[in-house]
């Protein structure tokens, strides 16, 4: 067990930020292409010095995801990835690696599990928090209160379409850090970070004092370099998976190292 969870996610992020200007968060769709491949991915993340990891529980209707992750979700489900396999992997990962691990997924999984059982399972697996792509804050009050009782942080999203009033509302309910989406749309497509992202992050800063993560379309080492000075955490999801598919395990390890090199 790492010290990360007991210290709280925000403290962990701030401690890391005292040592380096930018953190790196990476993503795995559990069960795709296989649980063994997922383990190799996690080892590569650990080796490269990735700071935070989100593990996605596959869902049949992933409405916030682009084509690569949609395919990964469906193929993982076809391969039979269920709750048990998911939590077995996360628990093993939390024991073996020092980075904090976040649950990522869709609300129906939580709804079917029950809020209390969901929080208990995350807690038992040694996870630090969760990101639910389709759960708006006004539906999350009970779950979030329960989670904080177990020292789990609900990670909320701020998006460029949100009004200042909405950003402020999200800011009031957020903890750990805030996941800011660099553009509209779904995961996967490249983002031009010169187009209004800085102004958007300024609006987020006004709404919260928590660390800010920036995701959606961060695909290259150059992108990560650009995130320096804009946000506190660069979040790379789809690009990791695409590199794994195109360049294999060695290419993946190399890719993560080049990303991480931009954060020190």
């Amino acid at each position: 067990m790492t010290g990360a969870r007991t210290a709280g996610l925000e403290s962990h992020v701030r401690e890391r930020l005292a040592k380096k200007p930018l953190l790196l968060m990476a993503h795995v769709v559990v069960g795709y292409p296989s649980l063994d491949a997922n383990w190799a991915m996690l080892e590569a993340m650990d080796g490269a010095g990735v700071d935070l990891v989100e593990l996605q529980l596959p869902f049949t209707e992933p409405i916030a995801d682009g084509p690569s992750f949609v395919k990964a979700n469906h193929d993982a489900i076809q391969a039979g990835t269920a709750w048990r396999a998911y939590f077995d992997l996360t628990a093993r990962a939390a024991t073996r690696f020092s980075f904090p691990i976040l649950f990522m997924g869709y609300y129906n999984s939580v709804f079917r599990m029950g809020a209390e059982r969901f929080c208990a399972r995350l807690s038992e697996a040694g996870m630090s928090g969760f990101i639910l792509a389709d759960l708006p804050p006004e539906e999350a009050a009970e779950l979030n209160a329960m989670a904080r009782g177990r020292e789990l942080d609900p990670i909320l999203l701020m998006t460029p379409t949100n009004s200042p009033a909405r950003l402020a509302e999200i800011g009031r309910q957020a903890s750990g850090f805030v996941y800011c989406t660099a553009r509209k749309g779904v995961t996967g497509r490249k983002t031009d970070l010169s187009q209004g992202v800085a102004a958007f992050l300024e609006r987020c800063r006004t709404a919260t004092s928590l660390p800010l993560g920036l995701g959606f379309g961060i695909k290259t080492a150059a992108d990560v370099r650009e995130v320096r000075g804009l946000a506190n955490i660069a979040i790379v999801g789809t690009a990791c998976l695409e590199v794994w598919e195109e360049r294999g395990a060695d290419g993946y390890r190399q890719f993560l190292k080049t990303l991480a090199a931009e954060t020190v």
Partner: protein
Amino acid sequence: MTMPAELFPWAPGREGYYGDFGGAFVPEMLHETLAELRAAFDNARRDPAFWKSYVEVMSTYAGRPTPVTYCDNLTRRFGGARIYVKREDLNHTGAHKANNVMGQGLLVQRMGKPRVIAETGAGQHGVATATMAARLGLACTIYMGEEDIARQRPNVFWMEQLGADVVAVTDGTRTLKDAINACLRDWAESMADTHYVLGTVCGPHPFPQMVTYFQSIIGHEARTQMLDATGELPRRVYACVGGGSNASGVFAGFLDDLSVELVGVEAGGKGIDSGKHTARLAGGKGRPGVAQGYKSVFLQNEEGLMQDTYSVAAGLDYIGIGPMLADLHQRGRVRFESATDSEVVEALRLTMRSEGLIPALESAHAFVAAFREAPSLSSADAVLVNQSGRGDKDIFTVADALGDEGWKDFIRRKAASYER
């Protein structure tokens, strides 16, 4: 006709809830877009001129009011309740889908958005949306599952002729639910200039309320027509239920009439026990869940993964059910039944031969339940069946189901003539 805002017994409660069901579970990206739509819809339905303009458009463009037809031959055959049919098949484009689409089109004009997107399963909603877009001068993209495109090629032809882009959806089960996901993804990017014309009473608030509002024109007309024709209200009203838009529309006219029993008919497919069906409520196989933006009853496994659904009628082949209907079921106001594919084909054949009516395979589900129950009612009772659409579109499926050799020969010859 009275504006339904005044008689709106089914207005949702907090955040778009009907009892335990409804709500708006969408990515944060769409939060403001739904707020904008709610405001535009609330503004429109409080404006008496809006409902008037809707009724006007439907009468001059789409063929409303649609008649109620008394079916004497069917009535005599079953020897019980008098059978009446609400003729939504006579709408432009051949189904009740036109109501919702033209209504949302008027709303799009008020919002000033130049583009619309829509999902379609059988293709009826896609064709209706494409006609509306052509008429109102809007760009139009229709998302349709690859499997549905293969099943419903004629509708793809018409959508394209009407100027719509038809995009094949290749993920998931490649059917209606996946087309809805594709629309939500498009909308998360395009919301500034695009309205999503959701075709049924599902999805995030305000769609269930808004689509029911436009479809309630069916029920309000039918109630008056039944009183005119029979001097009293029907004993029962039957409607097929996929997502539930035609059922919500016709039921809306009778919700306050507690003497009228409302019966929703789901697709029993190859039988509930076969696992190949879409009977979420009637089969007792649905479980509460949250997907595609709303909380309702879905066909899903214990861990919340949606299951494959099946029906001979593509328009009923869907995992979820409108939250208002799920609530009305829970409260006992609507009874749910199911009809199997073979019962549906038999009811269709009988209706064609007895009355010269050609219900869509979807609508024929409602006929099955009415035929089943009519003999046990008395001739003093009238029942109303909502014929939500016409069956011409189903010529390939129906010809297969009836094993029509003449049709197969025709197709073989036609195919041979295209060979290069």
